[in-house]
């Protein structure tokens, strides 16, 4: 049997998740069987993209000092509109190295409004 592409696995998984079925054990078994466990993180990333296409958005928010409720609502609203999402879920992370601002990673897209990114941008434009 030809190797199943990650995109197809992700599409199947996303369909099942949206329908409310938990097939995580099956996916795991398949990956072990096919010796493709090292592709796990890529399949998860691909599944997040597939979920976003189906209106379910999982966003990674990185800040230096945590988010206020106000900005959380604003981000949720922004993602709902820009990604055309029905449901938005957050995974928050703290990273002091971003210095300030916020970075939103969502289904193969990114909004990097951190101070670190601005500084890098400034550095490369100066060169």
């Amino acid at each position, binding site marked *: 049997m030809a190797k199943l*592409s*990650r*995109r197809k696995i992700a599409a199947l998984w996303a369909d099942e998740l949206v329908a409310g079925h938990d097939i995580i054990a099956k996916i795991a078994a398949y990956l072990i069987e096919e010796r493709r466990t090292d592709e796990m993180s*890529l399949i998860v*990333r*691909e599944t997040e*993209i597939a979920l976003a296409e189906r209106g379910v958005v999982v966003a990674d928010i990185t800040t230096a000092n945590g988010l206020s409720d106000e900005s959380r609502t604003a981000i949720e609203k922004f993602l709902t509109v*820009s*990604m055309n999402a029905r449901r938005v879920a957050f995974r928050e992370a703290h990273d002091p190295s971003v210095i300030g601002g916020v970075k*939103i*990673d*969502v289904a*193969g*897209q*990114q*909004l990097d*409004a951190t101070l*670190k990114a601005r*500084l*890098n941008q400034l*550095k*490369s434009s100066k060169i």
Partner: protein
Amino acid sequence: MATDLSITELSGELRDAINKLEVSGDLETVGIVTRVGDGVAWVHGLRSAGYSEVLLIEGTQGEQVEAFALNLNEDEIGAVLLGSDEAVAAGAKVTLKGTVLDVPVGPELLGRVVDPLGNALDGGPAIKTKQRGLVEREAIGVIGRKHVHEPMMTGIMSIDAMFPIGRGQRELIIGDRQTGKTAIAIDTMINQGRQKTGVINVYVAIGQKLSKIARLVERLKEEGVMEQTIIVATGPADPASLLYLAPYAATAMGEYFRDNGQHALMIYDDLTKHAVAYRQMSLLLRRPPGREAFPGDVFYLHSRLLERSAKLTDELGAGSLTALPIIETQAGDISAYVPTNVISITDGQIFLETDLFNQGIRPAISAGLSVSRVGGDAQTKSVKSVGSHLKLGLSQYRELASFAQFGSDLDEATKNQIEKGQRLTELLKQHQYQPASVWEQVASIYAVSEGAFDKVSVAKIKEAQTALLTRLWTDHKKDMQELTKGDEKISGESKYAKLILKTAQSVAKGFED
């Protein structure tokens, strides 16, 4: 009111709308590097990436490393890095630049040494041009082309007389290592300066030793040709991606002059190394290997490059782009994969032989295996009239000479032919960096082929030739300047023919044994 809107307001509104969208939708598509090594990065994500599109990879120090996408698979993109792969780590963020590769083009590049991305390598100021040209650009179509009809004089007698090259032609220079391939190309560049043809030289060094390029630049400066030359240099230590890009980027620089009604000469030194660089990239991108481990599209690699050389119609400005690609063979094997490909793409080849080179016949051009398929129409009248029988005579001589080795009993006619062949061979020997102008070529060849030097020994032919040229220039400078225009047919009754013959006969007397 919609009816009140002027065009300027429309463009202003559109700009506002774009700005608004850009601010509100700041989400950019990103991918991540999954694997990196050997100058190739594999990227996950970026579904909207196009073929040959530029990717920006965030380096470990926050810097940006450029790469271009060559493999677009369902699950990942194979991209070739344009910089060092040490700055790229797995997990790095990748974004799309939104453009395909382009390079600065224009007259600002003249006299400069640049890398395939248009960065200065000569220590001069950074290159700023008004225009940029696409590295990969489609060749001009049938309607935009005209037949090759103007000469591209190389200044090398044996080429201009026997295998003439026209503007817009692709003529391959092929031969083993150390047979003088680059020397022919350099002489051709120098000749453009000496004869003030106004042709722009673009020399592409593909993986050449940097010391060799430095020597070349020095020489061109000495000869005063550097002001009409662009050198695109890549060394052996550069990544394969730069070697691969070099000829395409340089062609984009040459095309600027072609499209602006000027004439440019491209020298690709050499396409064997280019094919090898592409093979390395292809194998690392996991493309299936074919003959000699080259990928399946190695023919297309060179055909799309050389097809960009053309002579344009008058409506398009009548500019031209001539190409002199160089191919290195192994032990004279012109039937290897890349040589046969390029031979079939080009409009002829100059074949250089090791044997001839070692015999001291330099340039070591093989009369039998070299050919120019379209240059005949481009040859100047005067050179054509004296050179028409040269190739046949020389080929016959080479054949007879090898045959005559077996015995000394030869009839008079054969002996004469061999002697004439020896004189012609001697005459066509030419030192490097000494390209000959039209009148010098015409006078030398006409004098020998009409038998004016028949009593001069073979060893003294070169001396006699120099004496003839000096005499002609000092005594008949005006006539020779007229002759250089090349419009006169040189034969029995013409004024110049008589003049050359008379001078040659009187010069020959001083060299007879």
